[in-house]
Structures are given as C-alpha cells and as structure tokens.
C-alpha cells in the first residue's frame, strides 16, 4: 500500500527529529559542549533534508511558517492524518 512508503519516509524524518530534540534538551543545560553542538547542527541539516523530501512527495507537515507555498487545491487539509497512517 502507498501508506507504507509514506510511513517509511516519515520515519526517517521522525528519527532525525528525535535526535535533534534530544540534543536540544541536552544543550539547554550543556551550552558549551562543542561536540554536541556540531551533532545538533548536523541533525538539523539532515532533518531539513528529510522534511523537504517528505513534503515534496506527501504535502506539508506544517500549515504555515515552516514550509513553502501551498499547491492547488489547498493541500493542508488533505489526508491521511498522522493517526491514519
């Protein structure tokens, strides 16, 4: 089913997001750890890459402010929603 492909692309994005959030929380209390900062910046770059790839294929992950313009017709309200994947 097509959902399987969508889910696997989404998982790549989510994995990188998880790494970014964990490093974010760590850096909140260890702001001078240069290794962690480098890891964080790498994770953010990868995250951006995965996000772009996913959105090109399956539509926006955010309704506005963090993506591009909407294609026609309006893409945001189109399923499947996260709990339907």
């Amino acid at each position, binding site marked *: 089913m097509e959902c399987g492909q969508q889910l696997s692309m*989404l998982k790549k994005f*989510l994995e990188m997001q*998880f790494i970014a*959030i964990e490093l974010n*929380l760590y850096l909140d209390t260890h702001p001078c750890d240069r290794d962690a900062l480098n890891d964080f910046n790498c994770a953010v770059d990868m995250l951006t890459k995965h996000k772009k790839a996913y959105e090109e294929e399956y539509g926006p992950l955010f*309704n506005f402010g963090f993506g591009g313009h909407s294609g026609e017709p309006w893409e945001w309200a189109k399923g499947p*929603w*996260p*709990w339907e994947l």
Partner: protein
Amino acid sequence: MWIYEKSLERPVTISRPDPAFAKLVITQYGGPDGELSASLRYLNQRYSMPTDKAKALYECWHRILQAKLILCEYLYIPAQP
C-alpha cells in the same frame, strides 16, 4: 506560539485490543499523574524559574504533549487484523 506538525513523534500500531491496558493508558493520559497535568505544570512553572536554563523547561512541556498525542492514538486506533 503553537505549531501543529502533521506527524506523530512515533507511529503507533496495535496488534490486538486490550481493555486492561487501555485503562492504564487513559490514566496516564488524564489521570492524577498523567500527561495532561504534567504538561500544564511544565508550561506554568517556567514563569517563576530563576535562570534561562530552567526556563527552557518549556521544552519538556513540548515533549509531554507529544507523549500525550501518542497515548491518544493508542486509544483511538482500531486493532489491525
């Protein structure tokens, strides 16, 4: 301030219905020490935190809401055959 991302932190799959476990999930969702109260606690406590580091507690609130949405999905998703 509030941004919804069209994905879960982690996808959920349910292999069989389990009412006993569902009861635990509901308690974790909205019970006395559940995610609902924890998320509001983190969100509100940050105002009186003395340092910037501690104010970043706000991010824990974000994590907890994510956990909450995952729990919510556990309750919603029908078991896969």
